[in-house]
């Protein structure tokens, strides 16, 4: 059967057909939909959201050691978190076939950096597959499990945003069952004490040599001979751009298995063409390998080293051709993303921004929708580096500033899911080492930015079952934060937020402020409806007779539900969720709350 699938849907389907039995991931764009598409195969494949990528990888590794075909999935930076287990799992090899799907984001559509994880496959010595479209994403994933078992190597399935989020036609197949053998301990294989690990390191070279031999004659690497004046070596989605640029006037070596690098195949291809061009996104991964073989080629001297590629860029790089376009002198206004109307983070940031006008506050931030708090008019996030870093950076900063005699206070801000990801360890550092930052946990009852995934605090699992719920205040207390230094507030009640900040901010010890109100875009559970009865039941309305058109509401909250024109401000009834932040900031009492 043929269907249209995104690369992520195709990877999920391929895992099912390839006999996977266990899947784990932490959500992250552009990888999130892989696991979101797994519950439909729930009878065959168990799937779960893990608190972070390291845990996801380790859980899948455990399933592999137990003999089941398994995989984990993550965005590119997630692989940094999961690097610890995977670098050593490369030594031990697998029992059940194992795949780590890693989704890079060239062009940084939704990421804090642009790292080329093909380098990590080489550094960790993982067998690497690079599909170029949805059909290959499906086919490669399906075959990856048996390949992992055959080579006794974990597979790194390397995909990019344009493979994950592009859709194409996919021919589906049937599931191939792989039985789980009876458990037998393999201590020399899996206990990496130095005596064992040194032997494994040596056998890994043997396994790599065998895989390199395989890579030179396998279905993943394909030669398409055309005109031999130009030979293009390419992988992943770059193949598509190369194919459109050079058409039938070139020959192609389309690589799908790129670690171990197929040296002989490359040498053979290059000997048949006059000139060698390398088309690849981000780092010169293929180019460096080709140059090590002593082959002259043209690659990054003309193709950009960063940002994603497309056909226009490749055509300009090799032929200096630029398409004819329509132009306009009219200025288009940028449309940056903004916190939604009714977002529970807005109230918190409003109060924080107000406090920061009166005293020096350093605001360390984190990865999530709330990073948008850094934008005008709130300007209430000063850093965003990686998951969980807000609390640990804030701890370090609070000590450094205190010891330097500065009176700058430090406020650290992260969401519930990011707190569970790695923030818990960071808070432990602050409690243990006597920091003095105010740690704010924005508990909006869901993992928001990636599109509403369940997490250990929501009470539900990926497969829709009820689950235990982390008690955040109790966890903070157990970590070592004093009970009187932990406050829980409704972020839409500005007075409540301000009173809690006034109490916690002056303290010279680590404190925790938890805001608890659901993301307005969330599909509410019965529990949410019971706990937050006014959700979506009210809206705000401006009394135009009382309104002085002072614009304080729009200029201080930045709420997109307030439609601002020269003559007046009105509230958009399709987006207002009745958070009442605008009502509370209005100096003329011109905004009222109406029940729907």
């Amino acid at each position, binding site marked *: 059967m043929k269907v249209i699938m995104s690369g992520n849907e195709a990877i999920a389907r391929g895992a099912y057909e390839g006999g996977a039995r266990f899947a784990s991931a932490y959500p992250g764009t552009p990888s999130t939909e892989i696991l979101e598409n797994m519950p439909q195969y729930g009878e065959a494949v168990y799937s779960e959201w893990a608190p972070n990528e390291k845990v996801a990888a380790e859980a899948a590794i455990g399933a592999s050691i137990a003999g089941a075909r398994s995989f984990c999935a993550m965005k590119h930076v997630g692989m940094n978190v999961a690097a610890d287990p995977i670098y050593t799992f490369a030594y031990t090899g697998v029992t059940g076939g194992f795949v780590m799907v890693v989704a890079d984001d060239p062009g940084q559509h939704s990421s804090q950096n642009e790292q080329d994880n093909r380098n990590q496959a080489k550094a960790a010595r993982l067998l690497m597959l690079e599909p170029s479209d949805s059909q290959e994403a499906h086919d490669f994933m399906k075959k990856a499990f048996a390949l992992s078992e055959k080579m006794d190597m974990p597979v790194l399935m390397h995909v990019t945003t344009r493979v994950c989020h592009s*859709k194409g036609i996919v021919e589906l197949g049937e599931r191939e069952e792989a039985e789980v053998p009876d458990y037998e301990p393999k201590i020399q294989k899996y206990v990496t004490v130095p005596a064992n690990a040194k032997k494994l390191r040596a056998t890994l070279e043997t396994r790599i040599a065998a895989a390199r031999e395989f890579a030179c004659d396998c279905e993943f690497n394909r030669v398409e001979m055309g005109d031999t004046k130009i030979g293009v070596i390419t992988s992943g989605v770059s193949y598509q751009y190369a194919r459109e640029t050079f058409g039938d006037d070139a020959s192609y070596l389309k690589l799908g298995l790129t670690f171990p690098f197929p040296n002989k195949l490359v040498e053979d291809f290059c000997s048949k063409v006059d000139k060698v061009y390398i088309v690849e996104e981000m780092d010169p991964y293929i180019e460096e390998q080709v140059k090590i073989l002593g082959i002259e080629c043209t690659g990054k001297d003309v193709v950009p080293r960063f940002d994603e590629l497309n056909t226009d860029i490749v055509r300009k790089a090799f032929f200096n051709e630029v*398409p004819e376009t*329509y132009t306009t002198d009219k200025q288009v*206004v940028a*449309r940056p993303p903004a916190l939604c109307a009714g977002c529970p983070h807005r109230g918190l940031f409003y109060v924080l921004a107000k406090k920061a006008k009166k005293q020096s506050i350093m605001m360390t931030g984190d990865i999530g929708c709330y990073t948008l708090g850094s934008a005008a008019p709130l300007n209430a996030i000063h850093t965003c580096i990686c998951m969980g870093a807000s609390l640990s950076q804030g701890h370090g900063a609070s000590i450094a500033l205190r010891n330097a005699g500065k009176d700058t206070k430090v406020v650290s801000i992260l969401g519930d899911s990011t707190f569970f990801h790695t923030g818990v360890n960071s808070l432990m550092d602050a409690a243990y080492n006597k920091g003095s930052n105010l740690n704010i946990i924005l508990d909006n009852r869901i993992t928001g930015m990636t599109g509403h995934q369940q997490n250990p605090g929501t009470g539900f699992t990926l497969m829709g079952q009820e689950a235990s719920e982390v008690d955040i205040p109790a966890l903070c207390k157990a970590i070592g934060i004093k009970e009187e230094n932990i406050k829980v507030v409704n972020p839409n009640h500005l007075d409540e937020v301000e009173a809690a900040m006034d109490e916690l901010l002056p303290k010279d010890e680590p404190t925790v402020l938890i805001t608890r109100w659901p993301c307005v875009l969330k599909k509410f559970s019965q529990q949410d409806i019971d706990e937050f009865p006014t959700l979506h039941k009210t809206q705000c309305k401006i009394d135009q007779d009382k309104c002085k058109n002072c614009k304080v509401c729009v200029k201080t909250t930045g709420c997109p539900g307030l439609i601002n024109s020269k003559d007046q401000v009105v509230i958009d009834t399709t987006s207002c969720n009745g958070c009442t932040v605008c009502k509370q900031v209005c100096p003329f009492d011109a905004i009222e709350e109406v029940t729907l």
Partner: protein
Amino acid sequence: MSEVKNILLVGVGGQGTILASKILTTGLMKAGYDVKMSEVHGMSQRGGSVSTQVRFGEKVYSPIVGKGSADVIVAFEKMEALRYLDYLKQGGKMVVNDFEINPLPVNVGAAEYPEGILEELSSKCDVLSFKAGEVAKELGNPKAMNVVLLGALVKALGGLDDIDWDAEVEANVKPKFAELNKKAFHAGYEL
């Protein structure tokens, strides 16, 4: 290689470009075309500018529409039409929803929404503009605006009348909205 057709659907996060492109791509696949579609998820959804790219033909390689190559651009919001103007092929068509959504800088008073967009576009290329929300509202629900625009897009592309669009619309919306959306498609097509 037979010609590949390029379409861009542009708008603001949450306007329903994805449903329109889903109906379009499944219809094209069933008609025997190779189809690719690309969109970007994530932070751009939070009120940001979004684009969905659709390419179809006998064989499609790249999932991305290049500059100066779109046969038709459908803009769900007026200023987005202007933002993506350089993607239009010489002689291509623009289908523009005459509807404004203020971006954040305009809303907080840091910038002004550009005036005279439709006139500017019309002076350069072939433009069909209308208020899709109002067309849909007359049919019973302004949210069917995206399917009205889809109908206009299919008309602008031309040569796709053999596809059973009613069946595709029906397969992609909830049963209770099927009639409304079929009417919306035809209303857009007739404009």
